[in-house]
């Protein structure tokens, strides 16, 4: 008997690293581009296919499908942004895995020390943590979790997940 879980490596997302004061970011980007800032730490807000994840003090990740990367880049204008905000395109920095199935939480628990119980990690939670010893971003998805690791560790993570699923 093996686990009831499966994983898939997802294509890259458009992803921008945003740092700075909320007000400065809104002033530069424009509120209409953003789904609104999450009210709590380590939560995400989504709107119009864009999600904004709080991942640290004055630090967010803005994500969308990869085919919207140029559109977002044009709107965010990272190279022209004022000194008070930092906007960096990091779409390629992470390899993302979707892990689903009734044993998905157990799969996560093999690699991740974070408390992912729904009481501690609700539907809109997002957090950097560790996955198989490497820095990773974890969030919930339908039927399981999505885990993003630094792109160069993607093959290793796939190797680990294959082993964990036995």
């Amino acid at each position, binding site marked *: 008997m093996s686990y009831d879980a499966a994983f898939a490596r997802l294509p890259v997302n458009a992803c921008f690293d945003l740092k700075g004061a909320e007000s400065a970011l809104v002033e530069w980007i424009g509120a209409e581009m953003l789904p609104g800032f999450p009210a709590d730490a380590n939560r995400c807000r989504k709107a119009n296919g864009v999600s904004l994840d709080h991942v640290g003090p004055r630090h967010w990740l803005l994500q969308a499908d990869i085919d919207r990367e140029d559109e977002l880049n044009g709107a965010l204008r990272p190279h022209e942004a004022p000194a008070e905000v*930092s906007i*960096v395109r990091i779409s390629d920095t992470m390899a993302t895995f979707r892990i689903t199935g009734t044993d998905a939480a157990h799969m996560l628990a093999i690699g991740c020390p974070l408390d992912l119980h729904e009481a501690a990690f609700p539907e809109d939670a997002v957090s950097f943590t560790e996955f198989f010893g490497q820095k990773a971003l974890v969030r919930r998805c339908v039927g399981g979790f999505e885990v993003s690791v630094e792109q160069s560790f993607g093959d290793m993570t796939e190797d680990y997940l294959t082993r964990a699923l036995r």
Partner: protein
Amino acid sequence: MQVRRLPTGGRIDRSQSLAFRFNGKEYQGFSGDTLASALLANNVRLTARSFKYHRPRGIVGSGPEEPATLVELEGRRASANQAATTVRLEEGMAARSVNCWPSPGLDMGAVNQLFAGLIPAGFYYKTFKWPGWHLYEPAIRKAAGLAGAPVAPPLDGHFEAVHAHADVLIVGAGPAGLMAALVAGRTGCRVFLADERTEAGGSLLDRRLEIAGKPALEWVAESVAELKSMPNVTHLLQDASVWAYREHNLLMVNERSPANSNVLERNWRIRAGQVILATGAIERGLVFPDNDRPGVMLASAAQAYVNRFAVKPGERAVVFANNDSAYAVAADLHASGIDIAAIVDSRDAVPEDARDLAGEIPIKSGSVVIGIRGKRAVKGATVAERDGRGAEKVDCDLLLHSGGWNPTAHLFSQSRGSLRYDDTLATFVPDKAAQACVSVGGAVGEFSPASALRTGAEAAASATGSEMPDLPAVTEGHYSIAPLWRVDARGAKGKAFLDIQNDVTVDDVHLALREGYDNVEHVKRYTTGGMGFDQGKTGNINIIGTIALQKGVPIQDVGTTTFRPPYTPVSFGAIGGIREESVVLPYRHTPITRWNLDRGAFMYEAGARWRRPGYFPRDDETFQEAVNRECRAVREDVGVYDGSPLGKFELKGGDVGRFLDHIYTNLMSTLKPGQCRYGLMLTEDGLILDDGVAMRLGKHRWMVSTSTAHADTVHGHMEELLQTQFPEWNVYVTPVTSQWNNATVCGPKAREVMAALGSDIDLSHKGLPFMSFADGQVAGLPARVVRVSFTGELSFEINVAPRHMRDLWERTMEAGEPFGIEPVGSEASHVLRVEKGFLSLGHEVDGTVDAHDLGMSWIMSKKKRDFVGKRSVELRRRGNEIRRELVGLLPANPNEQIPEGAPLTPGGERRPTEGLVTACVWSVVLDRWVALALLENGKSRHGETVHVRLKNATIAADVMEPVFHDPDGLRMRS
């Protein structure tokens, strides 16, 4: 034939017969048996030999306290260090005894018994000193140990390690643990319960008790059913030992029978808000002559074998005790048909409750056992009054003893909680907790079932802030004890063991005390008592009591030793989990890794866990031939290497310029957008931390590159400065190592290859001069081209997003083919940088040198008032001490290679070193071996001949400038 199996009763499944082998012989047991109970059922009495003296040993306990019968499992579940009492019997299981050869019945090591008087505790510390310990060490190491480790991975299945969290973690599913779980579970908080036995119930499994007016095991079954119905009780693990209690309520659990049959064992790492330790208590033995003979057993163990496993451990027993609990054992055994010859009680007065339990069984109060008859099996005991008078022999095949009960305080102690001595219980009990944990039931000295239920409920109610529930009715038992630390009667002869697992006797402890080891920790180390995986489960308190008696001090003044994890043996595999084989170490790939592998590249780790190609051998090429070919391509035509692993960070903010000026030794803030500059970073003590290139992307945007290996270190360095020293500075750091991959085209024909690739960037010398960069398209891909060189040749570093890297690489190989392009590995890169005298961290930068030593004084800015490490360098140099400085070396024999790291000594003589060789490579431009070295006052010694001192030879070499190719850098600037 299970001749000792009772016809009815027990928690075994008689419909499931299991065949197993022990020491090569076939036996039968039942599902629900342990290996120990199955051996006893088959009347196997001699099951082991002792560690040091190779004395015959049998089964002593019934759980993790077993000190004697340790086995090595063979076959699919091959493992060592297993107590037979904790091994769940499985069909086809094979096991063998340890500490004996060829068998416990005929053990060649038993010859040690002839010399027992010559090998007391610590004998080898004193004996094996001449001519030297190392002469004896191999043989002693071979003799030591409790079994061999498996020589191969498991044939099937794998181990797993997993994280978990709980509001309340309860250790133990006995009456206290179950009650605590029920109370906590009913509040809705997340409960994790782990129990070392194969089914819940704890000590209730071994005894005949009633709870709430019905058999206790019915209450257990109802409790378990209720817990299973609660979704917030996330885990109810059986056959799972909590083996370590770490800081911040992190506990380790070894689950030996996971539901997933592919998983051999699982190790849980549980972070709990509150821990309730319901670990019960362990019965300790009494210390009397030959108390280790097969057939001498803990009284509670015999009770467990009769009640839980329906096994009679003997036909006629003597029970020797100093407390009340053994009377219930005698009653249970008597009811099961075992003839109890006598209860020998060292106390003068036996409480009436106890006498009532004994019924018709003769009681010899104020008496002790002073000897055992029978070496391979008990045949009788000699019983006498406490002073030895009135000795009489009693025939028996079973000697049961009980020296009282010790709370299982191992985990509490591991959590750094303190223990105190309880006079009434004659044992150490948990005192002050150091973490959010509480001990309940037997684990805190509440030995009766009623108090176990009560303390379990109280702890859970307190942890969850809930009300105390009504407790089920249970008869309150009576327990009293008069400590007896050793039998010291006239006529008592023979070895009296305190620690059976480590063969430590009363005489050993006395010897340690006589020799000045009078602290309990010193006694432990001198005698090995309480060491190993026994961790003092049965012997600890007796050793402490023996020390107290001998020194004439109160036992609390002796104190306890430190209990250490693991509480019970744990497989290394379970600790490691799935981290084995290809993932035993982390690894990182670039998008070109597959391409490299497909072309037969020799791959290895090259810093920060990146797997990089060392070289690309062709056909029958040797290593050197392959490296030479790649080097020649770069020097004469063109090569390309994957520079993706270099660390990269984007810095943004109004203060980035001055921040870079602070962390680099040279000035960066003066760079114009589109320019880049090589720089050095120092540590606060003025040594080189890293080197790299800073690029100015815009007014407030910069990118810095670092060495591959030091990317994380530099990131930490920058963040530490920004968060501690300059929190008000406007600087944001974003790692982009994996946002930018690069293929670096280098060599005299690099520009032709770039032209063939096609680009909208002006790549001419004027359009994109050395140390500049530009964004645009290369081969139709969005790219940033940087004019830096780590090979000394004309180079174009083409940076693209990883999603484009494979395309870029293949197009580059295609475009470069007419020009003879070669992929270049790390080995060739090493040669090329040595030829140029470029520094390498870990080679020339060895943690002792500064920039001046490396001939890079030009990079130490004199314009800047301060930068990290500046003051340290200046202070050090004020001392005018001799420095080791970077030089080039040409071996006198051009075909003679110098080993990297080899020392330089004056004249090659056996004298203090004056330097070392940092690198030595075959130079394709000079067609000979060349080397770099750090040499005392090296810069002023050009032209001298120095000597490399090897073990059996010296190598002469001429000192020169540390650059062997294009000293003016014209090629890389071309």
